[in-house]
Protein backbone atom coordinates (compact mmCIF):
# COMPACT_ATOMS: atom_id res chain seq x y z
CA UNK A 1 0.00 0.00 0.00
CA UNK A 2 1.39 3.40 -0.81
CA UNK A 3 -0.36 5.23 1.99
CA UNK A 4 1.93 7.72 3.69
CA UNK A 5 1.95 5.91 6.97
CA UNK A 6 4.97 7.61 8.50
CA UNK A 7 4.20 8.89 11.96
CA UNK A 8 6.31 11.88 12.84
CA UNK A 9 7.83 11.57 16.28
CA UNK A 10 6.92 7.91 16.64
CA UNK A 11 8.85 6.02 19.28
CA UNK A 12 11.24 3.38 18.05
CA UNK A 13 9.28 0.29 19.04
CA UNK A 14 6.05 1.62 17.50
CA UNK A 15 5.74 0.14 14.03
CA UNK A 16 4.06 2.31 11.43
CA UNK A 17 0.53 1.10 10.76
CA UNK A 18 -0.98 1.02 7.27
CA UNK A 19 -4.26 2.68 6.44
CA UNK A 20 -6.16 -0.62 6.20
CA UNK A 21 -4.88 -2.13 9.43
CA UNK A 22 -5.59 1.12 11.17
CA UNK A 23 -9.03 1.45 9.61
CA UNK A 24 -9.92 -2.12 10.52
CA UNK A 25 -8.76 -1.59 14.08
CA UNK A 26 -10.90 1.51 14.42
CA UNK A 27 -13.89 -0.17 12.83
CA UNK A 28 -13.75 -2.80 15.55
CA UNK A 29 -14.11 -0.02 18.09
CA UNK A 30 -17.09 1.56 16.32
CA UNK A 31 -20.40 0.15 17.59
CA UNK A 32 -22.13 1.29 14.40
CA UNK A 33 -19.75 -0.65 12.18
CA UNK A 34 -20.00 -3.76 14.36
CA UNK A 35 -23.81 -3.78 14.46
CA UNK A 36 -23.90 -3.10 10.72
CA UNK A 37 -21.40 -5.86 10.05
CA UNK A 38 -23.36 -8.33 12.18
CA UNK A 39 -26.63 -7.53 10.40
CA UNK A 40 -25.06 -7.80 6.96
CA UNK A 41 -23.27 -11.00 7.97
CA UNK A 42 -26.58 -12.43 9.21
CA UNK A 43 -28.28 -11.83 5.87
CA UNK A 44 -25.33 -13.25 3.96
CA UNK A 45 -25.51 -16.43 6.06
CA UNK A 46 -29.29 -16.64 5.57
CA UNK A 47 -28.78 -16.32 1.81
CA UNK A 48 -26.10 -19.01 1.73
CA UNK A 49 -27.88 -21.52 3.95
CA UNK A 50 -31.42 -20.74 2.77
CA UNK A 51 -32.43 -24.35 1.93
CA UNK A 52 -31.43 -25.53 5.42
CA UNK A 53 -33.38 -22.84 7.23
CA UNK A 54 -36.85 -23.74 6.08
CA UNK A 55 -38.67 -26.87 5.03
CA UNK A 56 -41.07 -24.96 2.77
CA UNK A 57 -40.62 -24.35 -0.94
CA UNK A 58 -40.86 -20.57 -1.44
CA UNK A 59 -42.51 -20.97 -4.85
CA UNK A 60 -44.95 -23.78 -4.01
CA UNK A 61 -48.17 -22.92 -2.27
CA UNK A 62 -51.18 -24.86 -1.11
CA UNK A 63 -54.34 -22.89 -1.85
CA UNK A 64 -56.08 -24.53 1.09
CA UNK A 65 -53.52 -22.79 3.31
CA UNK A 66 -53.90 -19.27 1.90
CA UNK A 67 -53.98 -16.28 4.25
CA UNK A 68 -52.97 -18.22 7.35
CA UNK A 69 -51.91 -15.76 10.06
CA UNK A 70 -48.53 -16.31 11.73
CA UNK A 71 -48.69 -19.53 13.79
CA UNK A 72 -46.70 -22.60 14.84
CA UNK A 73 -46.58 -24.09 11.32
CA UNK A 74 -46.05 -20.90 9.36
CA UNK A 75 -44.13 -18.53 11.66
CA UNK A 76 -44.77 -15.54 9.41
CA UNK A 77 -48.06 -16.74 7.92
CA UNK A 78 -48.94 -17.53 4.33
CA UNK A 79 -49.94 -15.36 1.39
CA UNK A 80 -52.85 -15.55 -1.03
CA UNK A 81 -51.29 -18.51 -2.84
CA UNK A 82 -50.67 -20.32 0.43
CA UNK A 83 -46.90 -19.86 0.09
CA UNK A 84 -44.94 -19.69 3.32
CA UNK A 85 -43.92 -16.04 3.92
CA UNK A 86 -40.84 -16.93 5.96
CA UNK A 87 -39.50 -19.26 3.26
CA UNK A 88 -40.04 -16.50 0.72
CA UNK A 89 -38.15 -13.99 2.86
CA UNK A 90 -35.30 -16.45 3.44
CA UNK A 91 -34.93 -17.30 -0.25
CA UNK A 92 -35.63 -13.67 -1.18
CA UNK A 93 -32.43 -12.65 0.61
CA UNK A 94 -30.48 -14.38 -2.18
CA UNK A 95 -32.22 -12.31 -4.82
CA UNK A 96 -31.95 -9.06 -2.88
CA UNK A 97 -28.27 -9.46 -2.01
CA UNK A 98 -27.53 -10.73 -5.51
CA UNK A 99 -29.18 -7.77 -7.22
CA UNK A 100 -27.56 -5.33 -4.78
CA UNK A 101 -24.04 -6.72 -5.23
CA UNK A 102 -24.35 -7.11 -9.00
CA UNK A 103 -25.68 -3.58 -9.46
CA UNK A 104 -22.98 -2.05 -7.28
CA UNK A 105 -20.20 -4.05 -8.97
CA UNK A 106 -21.39 -2.89 -12.41
CA UNK A 107 -21.96 0.66 -11.18
CA UNK A 108 -18.55 0.92 -9.50
CA UNK A 109 -16.60 -0.60 -12.41
CA UNK A 110 -18.21 1.49 -15.13
CA UNK A 111 -18.36 4.62 -12.99
CA UNK A 112 -14.78 4.29 -11.75
CA UNK A 113 -13.56 3.67 -15.30
CA UNK A 114 -15.09 6.91 -16.58
CA UNK A 115 -14.13 8.79 -13.43
CA UNK A 116 -10.52 7.67 -13.83
CA UNK A 117 -10.53 8.72 -17.49
CA UNK A 118 -11.93 12.14 -16.59
CA UNK A 119 -9.64 12.72 -13.60
CA UNK A 120 -6.53 11.45 -15.34
CA UNK A 121 -6.79 12.98 -18.81
CA UNK A 122 -8.78 16.10 -17.89
CA UNK A 123 -9.36 18.53 -20.77
CA UNK A 124 -12.11 17.64 -23.22
CA UNK A 125 -12.39 14.03 -22.02
CA UNK A 126 -13.20 15.36 -18.57
CA UNK A 127 -15.66 17.91 -19.98
CA UNK A 128 -17.57 15.34 -22.05
CA UNK A 129 -17.76 12.76 -19.25
CA UNK A 130 -18.78 15.26 -16.62
CA UNK A 131 -21.55 16.75 -18.78
CA UNK A 132 -22.88 13.23 -19.32
CA UNK A 133 -22.75 12.72 -15.55
CA UNK A 134 -24.71 15.97 -15.05
CA UNK A 135 -27.36 14.75 -17.47
CA UNK A 136 -27.71 11.39 -15.74
CA UNK A 137 -27.93 12.99 -12.31
CA UNK A 138 -30.67 15.33 -13.47
CA UNK A 139 -33.18 12.50 -13.81
CA UNK A 140 -34.66 11.54 -10.42
CA UNK A 141 -33.27 8.13 -9.41
CA UNK A 142 -36.31 5.91 -9.09
CA UNK A 143 -37.83 7.39 -12.27
CA UNK A 144 -34.62 6.65 -14.15
CA UNK A 145 -34.69 3.06 -12.92
CA UNK A 146 -38.35 2.68 -13.91
CA UNK A 147 -37.52 3.99 -17.35
CA UNK A 148 -34.58 1.61 -17.78
CA UNK A 149 -36.57 -1.43 -16.65
CA UNK A 150 -39.56 -0.63 -18.87
CA UNK A 151 -37.21 -0.38 -21.83
CA UNK A 152 -34.95 -3.34 -21.00
CA UNK A 153 -37.79 -5.60 -19.98
CA UNK A 154 -38.40 -7.20 -16.60
CA UNK A 155 -35.88 -9.55 -15.03
CA UNK A 156 -33.27 -9.86 -12.32
CA UNK A 157 -30.32 -8.77 -14.48
CA UNK A 158 -32.33 -5.91 -15.96
CA UNK A 159 -33.12 -4.61 -12.48
CA UNK A 160 -29.45 -4.83 -11.52
CA UNK A 161 -28.52 -2.88 -14.66
CA UNK A 162 -31.17 -0.24 -13.98
CA UNK A 163 -29.82 0.31 -10.47
CA UNK A 164 -26.22 0.22 -11.75
CA UNK A 165 -27.09 3.01 -14.17
CA UNK A 166 -28.04 5.18 -11.18
CA UNK A 167 -24.68 4.44 -9.56
CA UNK A 168 -22.44 5.11 -12.56
CA UNK A 169 -22.51 8.94 -12.41
CA UNK A 170 -22.07 8.92 -8.62
CA UNK A 171 -18.92 6.79 -8.75
CA UNK A 172 -17.54 8.59 -11.80
CA UNK A 173 -17.84 11.92 -10.01
CA UNK A 174 -16.40 10.53 -6.78
CA UNK A 175 -13.28 8.99 -8.32
CA UNK A 176 -12.65 12.02 -10.51
CA UNK A 177 -12.79 14.31 -7.48
CA UNK A 178 -10.37 12.12 -5.50
CA UNK A 179 -7.95 11.93 -8.42
CA UNK A 180 -8.00 15.68 -8.92
CA UNK A 181 -7.25 16.33 -5.25
CA UNK A 182 -4.61 13.59 -5.08
CA UNK A 183 -2.72 15.03 -8.05
CA UNK A 184 -1.55 17.82 -5.78
CA UNK A 185 -0.52 15.51 -2.92
CA UNK A 186 3.14 15.64 -1.95
CA UNK A 187 3.83 11.95 -2.47
CA UNK A 188 2.42 12.17 -6.00
CA UNK A 189 4.70 15.10 -6.75
CA UNK A 190 7.55 13.07 -5.24
CA UNK A 191 6.73 10.04 -7.38
CA UNK A 192 6.54 12.24 -10.44
CA UNK A 193 9.86 13.92 -9.65
CA UNK A 194 11.64 10.57 -9.63
CA UNK A 195 10.22 9.84 -13.07
CA UNK A 196 7.05 7.81 -12.41
CA UNK A 197 4.72 8.53 -15.31
CA UNK A 198 1.48 7.61 -16.96
CA UNK A 199 -0.39 4.41 -16.10
CA UNK A 200 2.10 3.47 -13.37
CA UNK A 201 1.38 6.70 -11.56
CA UNK A 202 -2.36 6.08 -11.91
CA UNK A 203 -2.37 2.44 -10.88
CA UNK A 204 0.36 2.42 -8.25
CA UNK A 205 0.00 5.80 -6.59
CA UNK A 206 -3.32 7.46 -7.39
CA UNK A 207 -5.91 4.66 -7.40
CA UNK A 208 -4.88 2.89 -4.16
CA UNK A 209 -5.27 6.15 -2.30
CA UNK A 210 -8.58 7.00 -3.92
CA UNK A 211 -10.14 3.66 -3.14
CA UNK A 212 -11.18 4.34 0.48
CA UNK A 213 -14.04 6.75 -0.30
CA UNK A 214 -15.02 4.44 -3.16
CA UNK A 215 -15.47 1.47 -0.81
CA UNK A 216 -17.47 3.56 1.65
CA UNK A 217 -19.73 4.83 -1.11
CA UNK A 218 -20.10 1.31 -2.50
CA UNK A 219 -21.31 0.05 0.90
CA UNK A 220 -23.85 2.86 1.13
CA UNK A 221 -24.83 2.16 -2.48
CA UNK A 222 -25.68 -1.42 -1.45
CA UNK A 223 -28.26 0.02 0.94
CA UNK A 224 -29.79 2.17 -1.79
CA UNK A 225 -29.73 -0.76 -4.18
CA UNK A 226 -31.76 -2.92 -1.77
CA UNK A 227 -34.36 -0.14 -1.47
CA UNK A 228 -34.48 0.56 -5.19
CA UNK A 229 -34.77 -3.13 -6.11
CA UNK A 230 -37.60 -3.52 -3.62
CA UNK A 231 -39.26 -0.34 -4.91
CA UNK A 232 -39.18 -1.68 -8.47
CA UNK A 233 -40.64 -4.98 -7.26
CA UNK A 234 -43.29 -3.11 -5.28
CA UNK A 235 -44.27 -1.16 -8.40
CA UNK A 236 -44.73 -4.38 -10.35
CA UNK A 237 -41.43 -4.19 -12.23
CA UNK A 238 -39.80 -7.14 -10.48
CA UNK A 239 -38.88 -10.45 -12.10
CA UNK A 240 -41.70 -11.57 -14.47
CA UNK A 241 -42.44 -14.83 -12.63
CA UNK A 242 -44.81 -13.92 -9.76
CA UNK A 243 -43.60 -16.97 -7.80
CA UNK A 244 -40.14 -15.38 -7.52
CA UNK A 245 -39.53 -14.63 -3.84
CA UNK A 246 -38.55 -10.96 -4.07
CA UNK A 247 -39.05 -8.76 -0.99
CA UNK A 248 -40.44 -5.78 -2.88
CA UNK A 249 -42.84 -7.93 -4.90
CA UNK A 250 -44.06 -9.49 -1.65
CA UNK A 251 -45.09 -6.02 -0.47
CA UNK A 252 -46.80 -5.20 -3.74
CA UNK A 253 -50.60 -5.30 -3.47
CA UNK A 254 -50.47 -5.69 0.32
CA UNK A 255 -51.98 -2.21 0.65
CA UNK A 256 -55.22 -3.81 -0.46
CA UNK A 257 -55.22 -6.39 2.36
CA UNK A 258 -53.95 -4.27 5.25
CA UNK A 259 -57.19 -4.61 7.19
CA UNK A 260 -57.05 -8.41 7.43
CA UNK A 261 -53.49 -9.47 6.54
CA UNK A 262 -51.10 -6.73 7.66
CA UNK A 263 -48.46 -9.36 8.47
CA UNK A 264 -48.01 -9.84 4.72
CA UNK A 265 -46.58 -6.31 4.58
CA UNK A 266 -44.88 -6.41 7.96
CA UNK A 267 -42.35 -9.23 7.66
CA UNK A 268 -40.88 -8.53 4.20
CA UNK A 269 -40.78 -4.84 5.15
CA UNK A 270 -38.80 -5.58 8.30
CA UNK A 271 -36.35 -7.67 6.26
CA UNK A 272 -35.82 -4.72 3.89
CA UNK A 273 -35.41 -2.19 6.72
CA UNK A 274 -32.94 -4.41 8.61
CA UNK A 275 -30.71 -5.13 5.62
CA UNK A 276 -30.72 -1.48 4.53
CA UNK A 277 -29.92 -0.41 8.09
CA UNK A 278 -27.07 -2.94 8.17
CA UNK A 279 -25.44 -1.59 5.02
CA UNK A 280 -25.96 2.01 6.16
CA UNK A 281 -24.41 1.36 9.58
CA UNK A 282 -21.48 -0.48 8.03
CA UNK A 283 -20.94 2.29 5.47
CA UNK A 284 -21.08 5.01 8.12
CA UNK A 285 -18.71 3.09 10.37
CA UNK A 286 -16.30 2.58 7.48
CA UNK A 287 -16.44 6.24 6.53
CA UNK A 288 -15.41 7.22 10.01
CA UNK A 289 -12.72 4.55 10.17
CA UNK A 290 -11.23 5.52 6.81
CA UNK A 291 -11.43 9.28 7.23
CA UNK A 292 -7.81 10.45 7.59
CA UNK A 293 -9.02 13.54 9.44
CA UNK A 294 -10.19 11.33 12.29
CA UNK A 295 -6.95 9.34 12.48
CA UNK A 296 -4.84 9.85 15.48
Amino acid at each position, binding site marked *: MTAPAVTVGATVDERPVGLWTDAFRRMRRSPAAIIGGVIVGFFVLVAIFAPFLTSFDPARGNLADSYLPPGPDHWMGTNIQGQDVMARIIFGSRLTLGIAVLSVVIGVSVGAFFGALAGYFRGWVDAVIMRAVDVMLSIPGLLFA*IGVVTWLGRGVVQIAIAIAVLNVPIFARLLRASLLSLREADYVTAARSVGVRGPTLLVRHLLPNAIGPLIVQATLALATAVVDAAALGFLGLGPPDPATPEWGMMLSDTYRYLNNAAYLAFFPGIAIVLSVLGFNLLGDGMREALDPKLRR
Partner: protein
Amino acid sequence: MGKFILRRLLLLIPILLGVTLLIFLFIRLLPGDPASAILGERATPEATERVRNALGLDRPLHEQYLEYLSGLARLDLGSSFLTNRDVVDDFLQRFPATVELTAAALLFALTLGIPLGMLTAKRRGSWMDSAGTVLSLVGISIPIFFLGLMLKWLFAIEVPILPDSGRISLIDYNIPRVTNLMTVDAALAGEWGGVVDALRHLILPGIALGTIPLAIIMRITRASVIDVLNEDYVRTANAKGLPSVIVDSRHVLRNALLPVVTVIGLQTGLLLGGAILTETIFGWGGVGKWIYDAVVNNDYQVIQSGVLLLALIFVLVNLAVDVSYAFLNPRIRYS
Protein backbone atom coordinates in the same frame (compact mmCIF):
# COMPACT_ATOMS: atom_id res chain seq x y z
CA MET B 1 -26.35 38.61 -9.82
CA GLY B 2 -28.03 38.89 -13.22
CA LYS B 3 -24.87 37.54 -14.78
CA PHE B 4 -24.88 34.60 -12.40
CA ILE B 5 -28.48 33.64 -13.23
CA LEU B 6 -27.81 34.07 -16.94
CA ARG B 7 -24.77 31.80 -16.77
CA ARG B 8 -26.73 29.16 -14.89
CA LEU B 9 -29.55 29.36 -17.43
CA LEU B 10 -27.10 28.92 -20.32
CA LEU B 11 -25.56 25.91 -18.58
CA LEU B 12 -29.04 24.45 -18.35
CA ILE B 13 -29.49 24.21 -22.11
CA PRO B 14 -26.91 21.47 -22.80
CA ILE B 15 -28.15 19.50 -19.79
CA LEU B 16 -31.75 19.65 -20.93
CA LEU B 17 -30.73 18.71 -24.47
CA GLY B 18 -28.77 15.82 -22.98
CA VAL B 19 -31.78 14.64 -20.99
CA THR B 20 -34.03 14.72 -24.06
CA LEU B 21 -31.40 12.93 -26.15
CA LEU B 22 -30.91 10.27 -23.49
CA ILE B 23 -34.63 9.59 -23.17
CA PHE B 24 -35.08 9.67 -26.94
CA LEU B 25 -32.27 7.15 -27.48
CA PHE B 26 -33.68 4.91 -24.78
CA ILE B 27 -37.03 4.86 -26.55
CA ARG B 28 -35.64 4.23 -30.00
CA LEU B 29 -32.55 2.07 -29.57
CA LEU B 30 -33.42 -0.42 -26.90
CA PRO B 31 -35.53 -3.49 -27.56
CA GLY B 32 -39.27 -3.08 -27.16
CA ASP B 33 -40.69 -1.56 -30.34
CA PRO B 34 -43.49 0.91 -29.53
CA ALA B 35 -45.44 -0.36 -32.55
CA SER B 36 -45.58 -3.91 -31.21
CA ALA B 37 -46.31 -2.52 -27.76
CA ILE B 38 -49.42 -0.84 -29.18
CA LEU B 39 -50.56 -3.76 -31.29
CA GLY B 40 -49.58 -6.60 -29.01
CA GLU B 41 -47.44 -9.62 -29.78
CA ARG B 42 -49.66 -11.21 -32.40
CA ALA B 43 -49.75 -8.25 -34.80
CA THR B 44 -49.21 -8.90 -38.51
CA PRO B 45 -46.04 -7.43 -40.08
CA GLU B 46 -48.20 -5.19 -42.30
CA ALA B 47 -50.06 -3.73 -39.35
CA THR B 48 -46.78 -3.17 -37.48
CA GLU B 49 -45.36 -1.41 -40.54
CA ARG B 50 -48.43 0.83 -40.78
CA VAL B 51 -48.15 1.90 -37.15
CA ARG B 52 -44.39 2.41 -37.46
CA ASN B 53 -45.05 4.65 -40.43
CA ALA B 54 -47.76 6.58 -38.61
CA LEU B 55 -45.45 7.13 -35.64
CA GLY B 56 -42.57 8.13 -37.94
CA LEU B 57 -40.45 5.22 -36.70
CA ASP B 58 -39.27 4.36 -40.23
CA ARG B 59 -37.49 7.67 -40.76
CA PRO B 60 -33.78 8.34 -40.01
CA LEU B 61 -32.94 8.69 -36.33
CA HIS B 62 -31.76 12.32 -36.42
CA GLU B 63 -34.99 13.36 -38.18
CA GLN B 64 -36.98 11.60 -35.50
CA TYR B 65 -35.01 13.37 -32.78
CA LEU B 66 -35.56 16.81 -34.34
CA GLU B 67 -39.23 16.00 -34.72
CA TYR B 68 -39.31 14.96 -31.06
CA LEU B 69 -37.59 18.19 -29.99
CA SER B 70 -39.93 20.37 -32.00
CA GLY B 71 -42.87 18.54 -30.47
CA LEU B 72 -41.35 19.17 -27.06
CA ALA B 73 -40.95 22.88 -27.83
CA ARG B 74 -44.65 23.02 -28.74
CA LEU B 75 -45.40 21.07 -25.55
CA ASP B 76 -46.69 18.24 -27.69
CA LEU B 77 -45.52 14.91 -26.26
CA GLY B 78 -48.06 12.78 -28.06
CA SER B 79 -50.91 10.96 -26.43
CA SER B 80 -51.35 7.90 -24.29
CA PHE B 81 -51.45 4.62 -26.25
CA LEU B 82 -54.18 3.47 -23.97
CA THR B 83 -56.57 6.35 -23.41
CA ASN B 84 -55.51 8.46 -26.41
CA ARG B 85 -55.54 11.49 -24.11
CA ASP B 86 -52.94 14.22 -24.55
CA VAL B 87 -49.98 13.43 -22.28
CA VAL B 88 -49.16 17.05 -21.41
CA ASP B 89 -52.80 17.81 -20.55
CA ASP B 90 -52.97 14.77 -18.30
CA PHE B 91 -49.68 15.70 -16.65
CA LEU B 92 -50.70 19.30 -15.99
CA GLN B 93 -54.02 18.21 -14.56
CA ARG B 94 -52.39 15.84 -12.08
CA PHE B 95 -49.22 17.74 -11.26
CA PRO B 96 -50.81 20.09 -8.66
CA ALA B 97 -51.75 17.05 -6.54
CA THR B 98 -48.10 15.97 -6.54
CA VAL B 99 -47.00 19.52 -5.72
CA GLU B 100 -49.36 19.55 -2.76
CA LEU B 101 -48.04 16.22 -1.51
CA THR B 102 -44.34 17.04 -1.92
CA ALA B 103 -44.89 20.46 -0.32
CA ALA B 104 -46.49 18.77 2.70
CA ALA B 105 -43.60 16.29 2.89
CA LEU B 106 -40.99 19.03 2.63
CA LEU B 107 -42.79 21.15 5.22
CA PHE B 108 -42.83 18.17 7.60
CA ALA B 109 -39.13 17.51 6.98
CA LEU B 110 -38.06 21.13 7.47
CA THR B 111 -40.18 22.03 10.52
CA LEU B 112 -38.92 18.98 12.38
CA GLY B 113 -35.50 18.47 10.80
CA ILE B 114 -34.00 21.91 11.37
CA PRO B 115 -34.90 22.25 15.09
CA LEU B 116 -33.88 18.64 15.78
CA GLY B 117 -30.59 19.12 13.94
CA MET B 118 -29.93 22.33 15.88
CA LEU B 119 -30.83 20.69 19.20
CA THR B 120 -28.64 17.62 18.69
CA ALA B 121 -25.74 19.79 17.55
CA LYS B 122 -25.94 22.00 20.63
CA ARG B 123 -26.20 18.98 22.95
CA ARG B 124 -23.46 17.15 21.10
CA GLY B 125 -22.48 13.87 22.77
CA SER B 126 -25.56 13.79 25.03
CA TRP B 127 -28.12 10.98 25.03
CA MET B 128 -30.35 13.22 22.94
CA ASP B 129 -27.64 13.44 20.30
CA SER B 130 -27.16 9.67 20.24
CA ALA B 131 -30.91 9.10 20.05
CA GLY B 132 -31.13 11.60 17.19
CA THR B 133 -28.31 9.89 15.30
CA VAL B 134 -29.96 6.48 15.67
CA LEU B 135 -33.38 7.83 14.70
CA SER B 136 -32.06 9.58 11.62
CA LEU B 137 -30.22 6.42 10.55
CA VAL B 138 -33.39 4.37 10.95
CA GLY B 139 -35.36 7.08 9.14
CA ILE B 140 -33.00 6.89 6.18
CA SER B 141 -33.24 3.10 6.13
CA ILE B 142 -37.04 2.78 6.01
CA PRO B 143 -38.25 2.54 2.42
CA ILE B 144 -41.10 4.96 1.67
CA PHE B 145 -43.46 2.19 0.63
CA PHE B 146 -43.00 0.23 3.85
CA LEU B 147 -43.37 3.29 6.06
CA GLY B 148 -46.47 4.27 4.05
CA LEU B 149 -48.00 0.82 4.50
CA MET B 150 -47.32 0.80 8.23
CA LEU B 151 -48.66 4.33 8.77
CA LYS B 152 -51.78 3.46 6.84
CA TRP B 153 -52.24 0.25 8.80
CA LEU B 154 -51.68 1.92 12.19
CA PHE B 155 -53.51 5.24 11.82
CA ALA B 156 -56.17 4.46 9.23
CA ILE B 157 -57.07 0.83 9.99
CA GLU B 158 -56.06 -0.26 13.51
CA VAL B 159 -56.68 3.14 15.10
CA PRO B 160 -58.78 4.84 12.43
CA ILE B 161 -58.11 8.49 13.23
CA LEU B 162 -57.00 9.56 9.75
CA PRO B 163 -58.31 8.88 6.22
CA ASP B 164 -56.60 5.97 4.46
CA SER B 165 -56.63 7.24 0.89
CA GLY B 166 -57.68 9.98 -1.49
CA ARG B 167 -57.29 13.75 -1.29
CA ILE B 168 -60.64 14.72 0.24
CA SER B 169 -63.83 12.96 1.37
CA LEU B 170 -65.73 13.06 -1.91
CA ILE B 171 -69.01 12.11 -0.24
CA ASP B 172 -68.95 15.13 2.04
CA TYR B 173 -67.44 17.74 -0.21
CA ASN B 174 -67.91 18.57 -3.86
CA ILE B 175 -65.24 21.12 -4.55
CA PRO B 176 -65.04 22.78 -7.99
CA ARG B 177 -61.54 22.27 -9.39
CA VAL B 178 -59.79 25.55 -10.08
CA THR B 179 -56.12 25.14 -9.26
CA ASN B 180 -56.29 21.38 -8.62
CA LEU B 181 -54.57 22.05 -5.31
CA MET B 182 -57.26 20.55 -3.10
CA THR B 183 -56.60 22.73 -0.05
CA VAL B 184 -56.61 25.91 -2.14
CA ASP B 185 -59.70 24.91 -4.12
CA ALA B 186 -61.60 24.17 -0.93
CA ALA B 187 -60.62 27.55 0.45
CA LEU B 188 -61.66 29.26 -2.78
CA ALA B 189 -65.03 27.55 -2.55
CA GLY B 190 -65.36 28.85 0.99
CA GLU B 191 -65.60 25.27 2.35
CA TRP B 192 -63.50 25.54 5.50
CA GLY B 193 -64.48 22.06 6.60
CA GLY B 194 -63.16 20.91 3.23
CA VAL B 195 -59.82 22.63 3.85
CA VAL B 196 -59.47 20.81 7.16
CA ASP B 197 -60.52 17.54 5.54
CA ALA B 198 -57.99 17.98 2.70
CA LEU B 199 -55.26 18.74 5.25
CA ARG B 200 -56.16 15.61 7.20
CA HIS B 201 -55.77 13.59 4.00
CA LEU B 202 -52.28 15.07 3.58
CA ILE B 203 -50.92 13.96 6.96
CA LEU B 204 -50.12 10.26 6.42
CA PRO B 205 -48.77 10.49 2.85
CA GLY B 206 -46.86 13.64 3.82
CA ILE B 207 -45.14 11.85 6.72
CA ALA B 208 -44.42 8.77 4.58
CA LEU B 209 -42.81 10.85 1.86
CA GLY B 210 -41.15 13.33 4.21
CA THR B 211 -39.36 10.99 6.61
CA ILE B 212 -36.22 10.33 4.54
CA PRO B 213 -35.78 14.05 3.76
CA LEU B 214 -36.39 14.73 7.46
CA ALA B 215 -33.56 12.39 8.45
CA ILE B 216 -31.22 13.86 5.84
CA ILE B 217 -32.05 17.48 6.71
CA MET B 218 -31.55 16.71 10.39
CA ARG B 219 -28.11 15.20 9.72
CA ILE B 220 -26.99 18.08 7.51
CA THR B 221 -28.27 20.71 9.93
CA ARG B 222 -26.47 19.01 12.81
CA ALA B 223 -23.15 18.79 10.97
CA SER B 224 -23.45 22.33 9.69
CA VAL B 225 -24.39 23.82 13.08
CA ILE B 226 -21.43 22.04 14.69
CA ASP B 227 -19.13 23.65 12.10
CA VAL B 228 -20.59 27.10 12.68
CA LEU B 229 -20.47 26.77 16.48
CA ASN B 230 -16.69 26.54 16.20
CA GLU B 231 -16.45 29.80 14.25
CA ASP B 232 -14.79 32.85 15.76
CA TYR B 233 -17.80 35.07 15.21
CA VAL B 234 -19.96 32.78 17.34
CA ARG B 235 -17.41 32.89 20.15
CA THR B 236 -17.30 36.69 19.80
CA ALA B 237 -21.09 36.94 19.90
CA ASN B 238 -21.18 34.78 23.03
CA ALA B 239 -18.33 36.75 24.59
CA LYS B 240 -20.21 40.00 24.00
CA GLY B 241 -22.86 38.59 26.28
CA LEU B 242 -25.60 38.32 23.66
CA PRO B 243 -28.50 36.17 24.81
CA SER B 244 -28.11 32.67 23.44
CA VAL B 245 -31.45 32.92 21.61
CA ILE B 246 -30.08 35.77 19.52
CA VAL B 247 -26.73 34.08 18.93
CA ASP B 248 -28.54 30.93 17.80
CA SER B 249 -30.96 32.63 15.46
CA ARG B 250 -28.85 35.47 14.04
CA HIS B 251 -25.39 33.99 13.96
CA VAL B 252 -25.57 30.23 14.05
CA LEU B 253 -28.72 29.22 12.21
CA ARG B 254 -28.47 31.82 9.48
CA ASN B 255 -25.03 30.56 8.46
CA ALA B 256 -25.71 26.91 9.15
CA LEU B 257 -28.77 26.79 6.91
CA LEU B 258 -26.84 27.45 3.70
CA PRO B 259 -25.91 23.78 3.10
CA VAL B 260 -29.49 22.82 4.03
CA VAL B 261 -30.82 24.93 1.15
CA THR B 262 -28.67 23.01 -1.31
CA VAL B 263 -29.87 19.72 0.10
CA ILE B 264 -33.50 20.75 -0.42
CA GLY B 265 -32.82 20.97 -4.15
CA LEU B 266 -31.34 17.49 -4.22
CA GLN B 267 -34.24 16.18 -2.14
CA THR B 268 -36.68 17.13 -4.89
CA GLY B 269 -35.41 14.20 -6.91
CA LEU B 270 -36.08 11.83 -4.03
CA LEU B 271 -39.48 13.39 -3.44
CA LEU B 272 -40.58 13.11 -7.07
CA GLY B 273 -39.44 9.48 -7.23
CA GLY B 274 -40.95 8.76 -3.83
CA ALA B 275 -44.23 10.35 -4.90
CA ILE B 276 -44.79 7.39 -7.23
CA LEU B 277 -44.68 4.99 -4.27
CA THR B 278 -46.59 7.21 -1.84
CA GLU B 279 -49.35 8.06 -4.30
CA THR B 280 -49.80 4.38 -5.15
CA ILE B 281 -50.27 3.39 -1.51
CA PHE B 282 -52.56 6.28 -0.60
CA GLY B 283 -54.55 6.42 -3.84
CA TRP B 284 -53.39 9.98 -4.38
CA GLY B 285 -54.40 11.17 -7.85
CA GLY B 286 -51.12 12.82 -8.80
CA VAL B 287 -48.40 12.34 -11.37
CA GLY B 288 -46.90 9.44 -9.42
CA LYS B 289 -50.07 7.36 -9.48
CA TRP B 290 -50.42 8.24 -13.16
CA ILE B 291 -46.93 6.90 -13.91
CA TYR B 292 -47.57 3.80 -11.78
CA ASP B 293 -50.75 3.05 -13.73
CA ALA B 294 -48.80 3.56 -16.96
CA VAL B 295 -46.16 1.08 -15.74
CA VAL B 296 -48.84 -1.48 -14.91
CA ASN B 297 -50.48 -1.02 -18.32
CA ASN B 298 -47.23 -0.79 -20.36
CA ASP B 299 -48.23 2.67 -21.58
CA TYR B 300 -44.75 3.61 -22.87
CA GLN B 301 -45.75 7.04 -24.15
CA VAL B 302 -46.91 8.10 -20.69
CA ILE B 303 -43.88 6.57 -18.91
CA GLN B 304 -41.29 8.25 -21.10
CA SER B 305 -43.05 11.62 -21.15
CA GLY B 306 -43.70 11.46 -17.42
CA VAL B 307 -40.02 10.73 -16.73
CA LEU B 308 -38.97 13.54 -19.07
CA LEU B 309 -41.35 16.12 -17.56
CA LEU B 310 -40.37 15.25 -13.99
CA ALA B 311 -36.68 15.43 -14.96
CA LEU B 312 -37.29 18.91 -16.39
CA ILE B 313 -38.98 19.96 -13.16
CA PHE B 314 -36.12 18.53 -11.10
CA VAL B 315 -33.59 20.51 -13.15
CA LEU B 316 -35.62 23.71 -12.83
CA VAL B 317 -36.03 23.29 -9.06
CA ASN B 318 -32.29 22.88 -8.73
CA LEU B 319 -31.77 26.02 -10.78
CA ALA B 320 -34.13 27.88 -8.46
CA VAL B 321 -32.24 26.54 -5.45
CA ASP B 322 -28.90 27.63 -6.93
CA VAL B 323 -30.25 31.11 -7.54
CA SER B 324 -31.76 31.43 -4.07
CA TYR B 325 -28.48 30.15 -2.65
CA ALA B 326 -26.69 32.99 -4.39
CA PHE B 327 -29.19 35.42 -2.86
CA LEU B 328 -28.61 33.99 0.60
CA ASN B 329 -24.85 33.70 0.37
CA PRO B 330 -23.05 36.90 -0.59
CA ARG B 331 -19.76 35.00 -0.89
CA ILE B 332 -21.07 33.37 -4.08
CA ARG B 333 -22.84 36.42 -5.41
CA TYR B 334 -19.75 38.57 -5.65
CA SER B 335 -17.17 36.05 -6.69
